[in-house]
């Protein structure tokens, strides 16, 4: 069996990562950039990086994902990638005609010390960037942070590249974090229901979950427009959803343009969504009947089914911002969250999870991997695992039901279309969780306890 290699005894190790619970920065940068309308991400590194990120996003969304690459060669890695990037800039604008080119770096171009701002300036001087076209950039070394940090860095790069000064408007910037396209759509919908005009940084809805059209559209309809990106510099406020993925960009707009920012947890679950809605209210939004109705429905479902949640043990794996909200939500439902691990490094994570769980008696680790999680579960079995596709190995090995969430999900659909944020998202999550728990019970309970009505 696949994961029978994992020994029960936990050994502390620093030299290696086994079954990673993260990937590298550039894919996050690519994802953030795809949320800009008519933007082509560009990977300044070897061809393989770009191919891997694109394959990974394609497997996750089942959509074509486009990005350019500087196609580093041995020569470029010795003499620098300037010539490649300059040539790439010319070729990309000539051939693919994006409005925005979003360049991110890789471990290779970072280490050889390519000065991307200088190269971009040179490209502008040499007239390689057509009138009305934009280049933005982010530094995303693969040996620091994780894909989540790459997302954060690119969001910062986007506001750095676009935000303009102006008379403070009524619109509100919302940085949704590394969440799915339907989550971004749901965040927008909630904001609009309260009467707030949201500008999302960025918005992949309609880009990575678009309809079948019969032809190939390199730049689908969705994505935040350049005009809206410019407006971020004179918004009324910025709401950053999740400090790790969204805090950096929000703070940058605050510092540079004086747009006040508020950092909240990702609105996954009852409390976190309440807080998001309250924040919208503080910014002048009006809580609409529809929002109250959705919350009421969620609470109705929660109370109907609470006995199936109570004291069930859960293990969580994924990205830090999501995990904090999940821990809070599941604890609120009565679950006992036992193990929480993320691959993304960050010392504050442990404290945030313990606060969300309301206890110190919980196994939490940052900069960790699936191997460690498997060992934890071997030592203390759980009733449910919530994680991405890679959690399926543990799920199968230990026969524990799995609810898929986060990135990547290569083996199911749904995440492209249905949100996990907001009251609606929480309801969908509950439905999923109950589905796997009850299926498990139906299949494994003794015949005399097999119930028709649950």
């Amino acid at each position, binding site marked *: 069996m696949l994961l029978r290699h994992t020994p029960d005894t936990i050994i502390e190790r620093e030299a290696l990562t086994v079954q*990673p619970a993260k*990937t590298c920065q550039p894919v996050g940068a690519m994802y953030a950039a795809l949320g800009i309308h008519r933007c082509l991400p560009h990977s300044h590194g*070897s061809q393989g990086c770009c191919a891997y990120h694109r394959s*990974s996003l394609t497997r996750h969304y089942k959509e074509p994902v486009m990005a350019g*690459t500087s196609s*580093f*060669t041995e020569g470029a890695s010795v003499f620098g990638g300037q010539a490649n990037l300059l040539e790439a800039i010319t070729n990309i604008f000539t*051939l693919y005609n994006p409005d925005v080119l979003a360049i991110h770096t890789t*471990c290779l171009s970072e280490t050889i010390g390519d000065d991307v701002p200088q190269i971009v300036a040179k490209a502008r001087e040499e007239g390689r960037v057509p009138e009305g076209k934009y280049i933005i950039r982010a530094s995303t070394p693969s040996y*620091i942070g994780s894909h989540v940090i790459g997302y954060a860095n690119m969001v910062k790069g986007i506001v750095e590249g676009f935000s303009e000064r102006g008379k403070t408007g009524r619109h509100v910037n919302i940085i949704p974090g590394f969440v799915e396209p339907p989550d971004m759509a749901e965040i927008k919908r909630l904001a609009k229901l309260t009467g707030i005009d949201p500008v999302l940084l960025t918005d992949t809805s309609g880009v990575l979950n678009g309809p079948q059209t019969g032809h190939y559209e390199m730049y689908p309809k969705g994505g935040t427009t350049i005009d809206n990106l410019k407006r971020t510099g004179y918004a009324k406020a910025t709401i950053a959803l999740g400090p790790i993925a969204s805090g950096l960009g929000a703070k940058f707009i605050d510092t540079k343009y004086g747009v006040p920012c508020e950092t909240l947890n990702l609105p996954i679950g009852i409390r976190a969504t309440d807080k998001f809605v309250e924040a919208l209210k503080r910014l002048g939004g009006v809580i609409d009947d529809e929002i109250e109705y959705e919350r009421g429905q969620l609470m109705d479902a929660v109370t109907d089914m609470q006995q199936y949640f109570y004291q069930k043990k859960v293990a969580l794996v994924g990205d830090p911002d999501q995990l904090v909200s999940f821990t809070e939500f599941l604890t609120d439902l009565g679950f006992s969250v036992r193990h929480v691990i993320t691959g993304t490094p960050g010392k504050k994570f442990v404290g945030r999870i313990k606060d969300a769980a309301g206890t110190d008696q919980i196994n939490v680790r940052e900069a960790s991997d699936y191997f460690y999680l498997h060992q934890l579960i071997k030592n203390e079995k759980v009733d449910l695992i919530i994680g991405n596709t890679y959690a399926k190995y543990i799920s199968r090995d230990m026969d524990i039901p799995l609810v898929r969430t986060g990135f990547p999900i290569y083996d199911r659909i749904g995440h492209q279309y249905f949100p996990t944020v907001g009251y609606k998202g929480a309801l969908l999550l509950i439905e999923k969780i109950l589905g796997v728990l009850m299926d498990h019970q139906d299949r494994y309970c003794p015949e005399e306890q097999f119930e028709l009505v649950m």
Partner: protein
Amino acid sequence: MTSIKSGFLKERTLQIFEKGIDTFEMTCDRVSTAGSISQRACTFCGSRVVLYPIVDALHLVHGAIGCAAYTWDIRGSMSSGPQLHRSSFCTDLREKEVIYGGEKKLKNALYILIEEHQPKAAFVYSTCIAGIIGDDVGAVCKEVQKKTGIAVIPVHSEGFKGTKKDGYRAACDALMRIIGMNDTPQVPLSVNILGDFNIAGEIWVIKKYFEQMGLKIVATLTGDARVEQIKSAHTAQLNIVQCSGSMRFLAKQMKEKYGIPFINASFSGINDTAKALYDAADFFCNKSVMENTRNLISNEIALITPFINSYRNKCKGKKAALYVGGAFKAMSLIKALRILGIQTILAGTQTGSKEDYEALKTLCDDGTVLLDDSNPIEMSKFIIEKKADLFIGGVKERPLAYKLGIAFCDHNHERKTGLAGFEGMVNFAREVSLSVNSPVWKFAPRRGREYYV
């Protein structure tokens, strides 16, 4: 005649060829033009996919986490035993190592993993970052090999070194270091099978054929391979080389070093499979082998013909586009599609060579477009213009086909049924037929909601 190529990069014109109109020699084997959206990967990717199916070896990625995360169990290479190859091990280099070097970390990781898993050999993949910070991966491997007694092989697969093809070469170099480690005598009537990676269990089908022919298989490189077999691979009398791109280097090196001749083979489609088996039988000039082969082929063909005929009735007249890794596969597919009455209107490859494209030109019908190292814009343009009903390709091509509303068949890592050999032809025919005849295409936008009429 107006060119089909209007609107493409000037640098690309020699990589797009339309039979019956163009006459030039196609340019290929080059690094993608910077800035072009390529479907290609890097050296590391090439090495990783070739060595990955060695199931009882430890595969350690020395680099940043992405390289390991993206190659974690993505290739459906099946194992009949150990599953060690499906785990993802990585030194996960951080800023500290980028500054001070990662050799110490690599050494520690190797010691821990070798003790824990007792692998038969270890492959250490050197990635861009490992190469650029100047880690001496070779020296570390040597030291660990000496201390642990197992073969610890560096794979020089730094991504910037070139294309996927250069990665194949690095993998072949690594394999050459293992081949010959066992000091065993030549095995009579024996072969190695090179270039099959046991996706969806295909090597098991091929193995079965050779065994029925009365030949012994020394090593499979690398589908469902064991290190011990690879160590003895030099004792086989003939190398059967499938997948032109990846393993020709190894066959050439083995010929040079051990004098083992090789023949090219393809196990895609009826004709190519039969030819491959006959070629192998011919080589041995052995009466019983030849008779076994004849019987095997006629039995198999008799067995599958009714199925193929029934699928042909369902598929004939359809048009296909294909984009695959190697040109050899493209040629096999074109022939296999012909048997099903399907015309190929577009054929592209990531790694085709000049000779490959010349051969493709001969094989194709007039009007067929050939593409080297293509991208979605080019492909979708030709698919629509040439009215393809089916697209055959890999992971990045699938959603493109579906966006256009045409059928798709995966002939790459993600295929779920074996497409090799005679039974593979039936599987292929079934998959193609199921896909092109699926009722969902009637809702495709290009049909203009004709189902209402």
